[in-house]
C-alpha cells in the first residue's frame, strides 16, 4: 500500500529521492523538489519521498542504476546555497558529514552502503543549505529559490518532458 501522493511509478530507469520532514521548515526542501519535479520528468523517473534513514536509503537505492538524492543540509554556508555532488568510491566531503537533519546522516548512509556493497552505480546528491527548522514554518525565501533552481537543474539532468511551474508555497 503505497501512497500515490508520494511516489511516481517506474521500476526501471532513474530514481529520485527527496529527503526531508514536511513540517519542519526548510527541512522539506528535498520533498518539495521531488514534488515539483514530477510534471517535468514524467513516469519514466521513479520519484520517492523519504525521511532519509540509513536503512531506508540502502533499501531504496541498492541495485539501482542512476539515483539522485536531494536533501537540506547545514554546513555553515549561506542560506539557499546549493551544490551538486557526484558520489564516487570516496566518502562524502566532511562539509556534508553529519550535516543532514535526519538521524544518521546521508554521509553515514553512503559510507555504510559502500562498506556493505549496497550502493547504486551512479549517485548524485543535491544539497540545499537550510536555515529554518521550526515546526510548521514554511520554506524560507532563500531555500524556496534554491528549490526552484535545483528542480530545473535536476530536470535538465534527467531529460525534461514538461515545463517548470511555480514552486508551491507550503502550508504555514
Amino acid at each position, binding site marked *: 500500500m503505497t501512497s500515490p501522493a508520494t511516489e511516481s511509478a517506474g521500476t526501471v530507469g532513474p530514481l529520485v529521492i527527496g529527503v526531508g520532514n514536511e513540517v519542519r521548515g526548510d527541512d522539506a526542501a528535498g520533498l518539495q523538489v521531488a514534488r515539483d519535479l514530477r510534471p517535468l520528468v514524467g513516469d519514466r523517473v521513479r520519484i520517492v519521498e523519504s*525521511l532519509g534513514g*540509513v536503512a531506508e536509503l540502502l533499501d531504496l537505492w541498492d541495485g539501482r542504476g542512476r539515483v539522485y538524492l536531494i536533501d537540506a543540509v547545514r554546513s555553515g554556508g549561506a542560506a539557499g546555497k546549493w551544490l551538486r555532488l557526484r558520489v564516487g568510491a570516496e566518502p562524502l566531503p566532511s562539509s556534508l558529514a553529519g550535516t543532514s537533519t535526519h538521524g544518521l546522516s546521508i554521509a*553515514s548512509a553512503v559510507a555504510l552502503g559502500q562498506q556493505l556493497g549496497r550502493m547504486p552505480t551512479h549517485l548524485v546528491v543535491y544539497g540545499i543549505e537550510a536555515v529554518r527548522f521550526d515546526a510548521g514554518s514554511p520554506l524560507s525565501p532563500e531555500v524556496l529559490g534554491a528549490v526552484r533552481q535545483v528542480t530545473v537543474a535536476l530536470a535538465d539532468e534527467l531529460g525534461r518532458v514538461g515545463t517548470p511551474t511555480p514552486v508551491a508555497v507550503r502550508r504555514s
Partner: protein
Amino acid sequence: MSERTIAVDYLARVEGEGSLHVKLREGRVDHVELRIFEPPRFFEAFLRGRMYSEAPDITARICGICPVAYQMSSVHAMEQAYGISVGGSLRALRRLLYCGEWIESHALHVYLLHAPDFLGYPDAIHLAKDDPETVKRGLALKKAGNALMQLLGGREIHPINVRVGGFYRTPSLEELESLRPVLESALEIAVETVHFAAGLPFPEAEEEYEFVALQHPDEYAMNEGEVVSSRGLRIPASRFDEAFTRAPVGYTSALQSVRKEGTPYLVGPLARYALNGRHLSPRARSVAREVGLEPVVRNPFRSILVRGVELVYACEEALRIIAAYQPPDAPWVEPTGKFHGGVGAAATEAPRGLLYHRYRLAPDGKIETADIVAPTAQNQRRIEEDVRHVVERSLALDDARLTDLCERAIRNHDPCISCATHFLRLEVERT
C-alpha cells in the same frame, strides 16, 4: 582547588539536540547536565487551532524513528475525549503496527547505534568494515519491521493510514499472511540477536531505578494499561499529571519530567521488562533465561539484551496477531453523539518508553492546548544520574576514556540524541 570539566559540544539534529557537561571538583562530581532540546515543545504550539483529526499525522512527524508511537498516543487521547472505544481486530492491528515500530527501532539501536560501543568501534560503518554480517543482520531485522509499518501504516516512515477510530484502510487476510515468512525469519534473527548481545562485555553497574511503564492485566503493554511504577504507583494513564510533573531547568529547553516528589524515574525497555516480564511470550522468556537475564535488570549497559528480548517478543506477537486476524467490519469507528469539547489524555509505550499526550479540545473539535511528554524528557534526569555514577566509579580514567564511558551511559537509554552522540566532539578543561 582542583576542577575537571568534561564538556561535549552540541550537534544539531532534528530528533533532538544534545550535549553533555560534567564538572568535577576536588575529585568529586559537582554536577552533570544533559542538555536536550525536545522538538515536541514546538509541535505543541503548531497543534493549537488544528482539528483533532489532524493530530495523528502532525505528531507522527515529531520523530522519524517512532512515528507510530506519536500517532498511537494521539489517537487514544482523542478517542478518550470523544468517547470512542476501539476493540477487536482494529485494536489488534494497532498492536501489530506497534510491533513493527518496536522491531524497526530496536534493530536500529541494537545494531547500528549500541553494538559498536561494546565492540570497540566508533560507529556502525567501521563495524561493517570488519563484520558486515552483523550489520546486515540488523538491517534485515529492521526491514521486517519496516514491512509491517509499510503495510499497516501506508508508508515505512511517517505512516499516513492511522486515524482517530482506526485506520483509513485495513489490510486483507492475504496481505497480512504475506508477511508471515519475513516475520518468521525475523524471529530467528531476533533470537540470534539476544545470543549475540549476551556475548558482549558489559561494564559493571547497578542503578536504583524507579521503573515506570504501562501495565495491562493480560498482555505486555503497548497501547493500553495503567501507569505503574516499581515503587507502588498505579494510576490510570489519563491521570498521568497527578503523579508526574515537568519543569524547565536552566541549561536545557526541554521540560524535565520527574515524580511529583521531585525524584527521577526511568521509562523504556528496562522498565517494561521489570514490570511486565511475566507477559512476555514463551519464546522471549525462554531466550531471556537461556542467556541468564535476570527478571529485573539494573545494569543499564545490559539494556541491549532487554531490547533483544523485546525484539523476540515483538516478532512473536506480530505472528500471533496475524494468525488470529479477522478483517474488521469497518476500518474505523465513528464518534457518536454531539461533542461538547473536553480533555483527552492517553499514554502508549514508544520503543524508548512511555509517551503521554494530553489535548484540550473545543466543541468544534479544534485543539486548544496540546501537551506531549516524550520518553527522553522523562529519562533525562535519570540519565544524568547514570552519568554521575559512571564518572564516580571511573575517576581514574583519562578524559578520553571517561568521555567515551559517559556517552555510552547516555546511549544505553536510546535517547533521541543517541545518533548524535556518536559524532560528539570532546572538549576538556582542566584547572
